C-alpha cells in the first residue's frame, strides 16, 4: 500500500511508514492542542517533495492569522505558498449555498489544482451547519468518496473532546484518527498524541509524547514493555569493573547484557563506580555512554581525571559519550526515547544512567516510572548492552533498602553502597545483594575512594546493616 510520509520526526515510524495514501483522516483535539500546526507541518514537508496541498478553512478570517503564526516555524516556506500549498475558503460557500454547493465548489477546486492532500479546518464548523446527524453523515460519506476517487489524502481538523470520538458519525467513516491533547504533569505542560484508528496500517498504539518547537512537531514514541520484547538471547560473557576485588566478588564481573542497580546514599560513590565501569570498557575497546542527570559532562571529566582515568581521548574519538540533561529539563517521555535512540545503530556495550532517582522526580506516578524503566531495561537487554542504573538511597544509615519504588525487581544485579559507623568512624561499605546467574560473594566489604581510584578493603565483621 502506498503511504504518504508525514516527514514529522518519528511519526512515520509510529505509523509503520506513513499514512495510507488516499485515506480520510480526522485530526481532533481541544483548541490549542496543536492540530493546525500538525497538518501544516505535514503539508509543507510534502510540498518540499513536490506534492500539492489544498488547505481549506471554514472561518474566513482565520487564514490570515494562521499564515502569520506559521511563519515562526522552520517548516514554513513562503515560496511554496500559492504553488504547492494553496489556501482556500470553503466556509463561505457552505454557509451561503449549502452542503451540496459546497461539494461542487470543492470538486471545482480539486479540478483546478489537482492536489494530493486536502485539509478542511475545521470539520466541526461544517457539522454545525447541518440540520441533523443523518444529513451530516451523508455529507462526510460523499466527502470521503470524493477524496479517494481523486486520489487525495485528506485531513479533517476538528475541535473534538475525547468523549465525542466514540459517538459522532465522522469518526466511524474516517480511515484514520489522530487525537491530540495536553495535560499537566509535575512541572511540565505535556502534549500527547494517540492514533485511535488507522485502516490499512499496523501503527503503534498508545500515548505518544509530542512537542511543538521552532522546528514544528516532534514526536517521541511510547516505550513498549511488551511480551515479545522479553525474547532475547542471553550472553554468558562478563564485563569487568577493572576493580579486581569487586570483579572477584561478582564471579568475574557483570554478566553481559544485564541490568545492575547501584543503590547508595549521597556521597557513597555511585557515580564514580559507574564511571569506572565505563572507563574500564573503553580501555578494552568497547563503546560506552554515560547518561547523567546529576553532574555535567565537565564535572564528570574532572572527576575522572582526578582519579587518574584519562577519559579525554575516548571522549574525543567518540568511544565514550557523556550526555547531560539538567533535572530541571528532564522529561521522562522524551529522554527515555532519546536514551534508546543513542543506543540504536551504535555498538554500545556499556551504558549508565545516573541517576534514575532524577527520572522518578519528573514522572507523575510510580507505576509509570517503573514501566519506563522496565521498557528501557528490556530494550537495552535485547541489544546486549550491559547497563548500570544508579539510585539514590536517601537514608544514610538505613537498613538495606534498595529503593522506594521496588526497582530491584527490574535489576539482574544489585550492589549496595552505604555508610556504617564503626568506633565513631564513618566507613563506606559495599555489598552485593543480588547477581543473577552468578555465585557472588555475600560478604560486606569496606571500601575507600582515593586519588588512585576505588579500593575494596577487608570484610566488615560488625556492620549491622540488616537490622
Amino acid at each position, binding site marked *: *500500500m*502506498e*503511504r*504518504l510520509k508525514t516527514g514529522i520526526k518519528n511519526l512515520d515510524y509510529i505509523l509503520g511508514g506513513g499514512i495510507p*495514501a*488516499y485515506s480520510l483522516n480526522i485530526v481532533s483535539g481541544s483548541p490549542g492542542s496543536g492540530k493546525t500546526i500538525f497538518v501544516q507541518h505535514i503539508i509543507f514537508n510534502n510540498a518540499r517533495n513536490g*506534492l500539492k496541498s489544498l488547505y481549506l478553512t471554514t472561518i474566513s478570517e482565520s487564514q490570515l492569522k494562521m499564515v502569520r503564526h506559521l511563519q515562526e516555524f522552520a517548516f514554513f516556506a513562503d515560496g511554496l505558498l500559492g504553488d504547492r500549498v494553496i489556501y482556500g475558503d470553503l466556509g463561505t460557500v457552505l454557509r451561503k449555498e449549502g452542503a451540496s454547493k459546497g461539494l461542487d465548489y470543492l470538486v471545482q477546486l480539486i*479540478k483546478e489544482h*489537482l492536489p*494530493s492532500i486536502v485539509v478542511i479546518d475545521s470539520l466541526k464548523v461544517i457539522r454545525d451547519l447541518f440540520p441533523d446527524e443523518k444529513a451530516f453523515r451523508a455529507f462526510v*460519506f*460523499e466527502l470521503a*468518496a*470524493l477524496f*479517494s*476517487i*481523486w*486520489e487525495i*489524502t485528506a485531513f479533517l481538523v476538528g475541535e473534538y473532546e475525547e468523549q465525542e470520538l466514540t459517538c459522532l458519525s465522522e469518526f466511524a467513516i474516517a480511515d484514520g484518527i489522530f487525537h491530540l491533547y495536553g495535560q499537566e504533569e509535575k512541572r511540565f505542560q505535556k502534549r500527547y498524541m494517540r492514533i485511535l484508528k488507522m485502516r490499512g496500517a499496523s501503527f503503534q498504539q498508545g500515548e505518544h509524547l509530542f512537542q511543538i518547537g521552532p522546528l514544528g512537531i516532534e514526536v517521541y514514541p511510547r516505550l513498549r514493555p511488551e511480551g515479545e520484547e522479553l525474547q532475547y538471547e542471553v550472553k554468558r560473557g562478563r564485563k569487568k569493573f577493572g576493580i579486581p576485588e569487586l570483579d572477584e566478588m561478582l564471579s568475574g564481573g557483570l554478566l553481559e547484557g544485564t541490568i545492575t542497580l547501584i543503590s547508595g546514599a549521597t556521597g557513597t560513590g555511585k557515580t564514580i563506580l559507574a564511571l569506572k565501569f565505563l572507563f574500564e570498557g573503553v580501555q578494552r575497546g568497547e563503546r560506552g555512554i554515560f547518561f547523567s542527570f546529576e553532574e555535567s559532562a565537565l564535572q564528570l571529566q574532572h572527576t575522572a581525571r582526578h582519579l587518574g582515568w584519562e577519559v579525554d581521548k575516548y571522549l574525543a574519538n567518540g568511544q565514550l559519550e557523556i550526555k547531560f540533561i539538567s533535572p530541571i529539563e528532564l522529561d521522562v517521555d522524551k529522554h527515555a526515547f532519546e536514551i534508546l535512540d543513542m543506543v540504536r545503530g551504535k555498538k554500545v556495550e556499556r551504558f549508565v544512567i545516573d541517576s534514575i532517582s532524577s527520572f522518578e522526580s519528573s514522572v507523575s506516578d510510580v507505576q509509570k516510572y517503573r514501566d519506563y524503566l522496565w521498557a528501557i531495561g528490556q530494550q537495552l537487554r535485547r541489544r546486549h548492552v550491559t547497563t548500570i542504573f544508579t539510585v539514590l538511597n536517601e537514608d544514610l544509615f538505613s537498613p538495606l533498602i534498595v529503593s522506594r519504588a521496588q526497582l530491584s525487581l527490574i535489576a539482574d544485579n544489585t550492589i549496595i553502597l552505604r555508610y556504617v559507623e564503626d568506633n565513631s568512624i564513618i566507613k563506606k561499605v559495599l555489598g552485593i545483594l543480588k547477581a543473577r546467574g552468578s555465585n557472588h560473594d555475600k560478604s560486606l566489604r569496606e571500601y575507600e575512594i582515593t586519588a588512585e581510584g576505588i579500593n575494596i578493603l577487608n570484610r566488615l565483621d560488625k556492620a549491622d546493616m540488616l537490622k
Partner: protein
Amino acid sequence: MGETIGDRIKHYEALLREMWAASAKYLGAFSVNLLVERVVWEVSLEYKEIELLQYDQNGVSCAKIAARLEENPDLPVEDMFVKFIARYVEILAKLLGHERAEEIRKKLGQLGEEFSGEPFASREA
C-alpha cells in the same frame, strides 16, 4: 471485417458496462459514479465529446455519443474510449491495489484485446 463505427461504439459501451459492474463490486455505485465523473472530466480536456457519455448510479450509456457520430463520423471516438478506459483502470489500480485492478483489466481483455496491457502509473501520493 465490415464492422461499422456503430458496432465499435456498442463494443466500447459493453466494455464500459463491464468495467462499471466489476468496479462497483469493490467501490460501490456511488463511488463508481464519482470515478466516471472524474475520468470524464480528465478525458474531456482532450476529447470534449466524452461529456456526452451518460452515467448515473445505475450504469453508463453511449447513446448520445452514437447519435453525435451520425452527425459527424470523423470524431476520434476510438482514441477517446481507449484513453477513458485506460485512465479508469489506472486510477482503480491506485485505489484498489494492482491485484484487483488486474482482475478488472483481465475481464476487459477478454472483451477487447486493446486492454490486455498493464495499467500505467499515475501521480504519486
